[in-house]
């Protein structure tokens, strides 16, 4: 994993602070998230303290600091979905999984990400789990969906 970050960094020889965001974006793309190890490496490369990198990264919603779960739930918070109650949807998922947006469950199965319009406004409110879209959701419906993934896992596990 470090080597992936290192590879990204080789593309930015002698870079300074101004390259922090593009580097973070590339690292997230290759690793799926921003790890502590990656921050340490980036910090050394750019001469920026880890606390600063974390500060910058948490300012933007796009970065995550834990690996994605096996089931990555993207919750649309675009305008259409917002109007149709996506705030509730998000809250129900968070409650069902006992994690917040941007986090991953301890068993590594689920993660939640908040995204802007994912281009399915006709189906608002929408979530997308590992590429599978679920539309016209209600709080109860979304809880069922989460449960179905949990059951699927339990079945596999046994």
């Amino acid at each position, binding site marked *: 994993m470090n080597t992936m970050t290192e590879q990204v960094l080789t593309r930015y020889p002698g870079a300074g602070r101004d390259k922090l965001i593009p580097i973070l974006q590339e690292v997230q793309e290759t690793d799926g998230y921003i790890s*502590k190890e990656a*921050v*340490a490496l980036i910090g050394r490369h750019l001469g920026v*303290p*880890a*606390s*600063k*990198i*974390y*500060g910058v990264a*948490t*300012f*933007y919603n796009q970065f995550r*600091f834990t690996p994605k779960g096996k089931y990555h739930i993207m919750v649309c918070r675009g305008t259409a979905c917002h109007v149709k109650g996506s705030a509730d949807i998000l809250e129900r998922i968070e409650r069902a999984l006992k994690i917040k947006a941007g986090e991953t469950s301890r068993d590594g199965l689920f993660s939640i990400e908040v995204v802007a319009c994912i281009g399915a406004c006709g189906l608002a409110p929408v979530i997308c789990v590992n590429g599978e879209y679920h539309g016209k959701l209600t709080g109860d419906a979304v809880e069922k969906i989460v449960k179905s993934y949990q059951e699927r896992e339990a079945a596999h596990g046994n």
Partner: protein
Amino acid sequence: MEQMRANGSAISFEQGETVLSALKRAGIRVPTLCHIECLPPVGACRICVVEDTATGQLIPSCSFPAAPGLSVATHSVKALRARKTIVELLLANHPDDCLYCDRNLTCDLQKLAEELGVRQRRITGERIAQFVDNSSPAIMRDPEKCILCGKCVRTCEEIQGVSALDFSGRGSKSRISTAFDRSLNLSTCVACGQCVMACPTGALTERSSLREVLNALQDPKKTVVIQHAPAISVSLAEEFGLPAGSDIMGLMTAALKKIGFTAVFDTSFSADLTIMEEATELVERVKGGGVLPMITSCSPAWIKFAETFYPTVLPHLSTCKSPQQMLGAVIRHYWADTQGLDKKAVYSVSAMPCTAKKFEAEREEMLVKGAPDIDAVLTTRELAKLIRMYSIDLGKLEPVACDLPFGERSSAGKLFGASGGVMEAAIRTAHYLITGRELENLVVAAVRDGEGLRETTLTLGGLTLKAAVVSGLGSARKVLDEVAAGKSPYHFIEIMSCPGGCINGGGQPRGLDRDNVKKRLAALYAIDAAATLRVSHKNRAVADLYGKFLGKPGGHLSHELLHTTYQARTDLL
């Protein structure tokens, strides 16, 4: 000097000065929250606004340049209202915890609320529950009391060069955090406490050991002793409203006796002991081709800084323990025997101007068979609290002397309280060890008075030694980069973590007022000038300790009890 107007009168200012600094010189106080005098202004909190009488506009005095023709009203109704609103906004999501807060009666925010007449919660903001971080042995962080002034962030980064803390998140989720919101003990924080000095609220405090000390004092099975660092006697007075720079050594000792400490010892004694060990080590390194430059090791935040950021420099550190730990070791492993006490029955407290000393006392390197030599460390602030708790009126006490044998000290040991002091004491003794003669002029002016880098070249017998002194970890980085690169021109370097040394330590009376620090410094120099015993090697109690117990400086027992090792900490973020 040019002129502007404030409250109808002319006041003078220098080119490039801010309105705030001109006002201060004119004796006009305007409150500040985010401003740090020795750093460039950021203008974040706006509590310092004054009214421009020409335009009626409010301008932040801390960042607004003074200009000829400018006329301000510092306490117009408009300015006062604005300040009050700012405080009300800051209080909107602030806990009502004053009664239970470390800063009750000393809090800048509380004081402003009182001064500006805030009498009700007019504005209520959403409060986010956050955990108190008590993971560090030295520093406690209560994020709910944070007003996001950013002073800790700037102190940690710009003065100390550590950057353990920064702003993270955004909008209403903005907070001060370490990298990855880890607890402080897993961060690069070196426990220096300078952020505590800067913080206007109770969001940053030392981790208090008062309760442990009180419990020990009540325990009939324990013999409780205390040592106090060189900087304490010239700083404690301020906590009792006495003028800065008053030396209240005798009164403080009397107070500690009254509280019930069986013995009150002076860490300046073990500063002398440190000098004997450290000067011997330096001479050995110079003559025997050891690792040079040698760097002092009495400042525990500096030690953690080296371990975290300059692991390759660790062989340059003197292996000497700090005076606190040396005295702790001889109290437990020698003094207890002389008193017929069980080692384990001695509860050893130290009063220090420092938060990092709490961290030092707990270091695994400092444990002997799993037990610490120092059981509890109190900062100057905690010491004052302890004295108040016992309702002791310093004015009604007769001064008494510290207990022997660890009460005798040279004024060289006392100088440890100031940046440059260890160097000066070491030079006095190294000169004697090498040449057999005393320095003609004991005052080594080149290393006195100041925070930035100071250097001096000494000729001792046939040896030429280059020495440097620096305080404030941020300022130390340049010197250390040279050492790490193998390009340092020096033989001996003194590094103190806090700007100005222990007199400005992170456990001292709060605030960033350097005027008080200068007065503490002057007090130390006055003590030295008036002293008859001014060199560590003439301290008879130290010589006696070597004769009766330790053997010789740098000897076997010294190495076992008075020297230590360090660890690289590259896993911290």
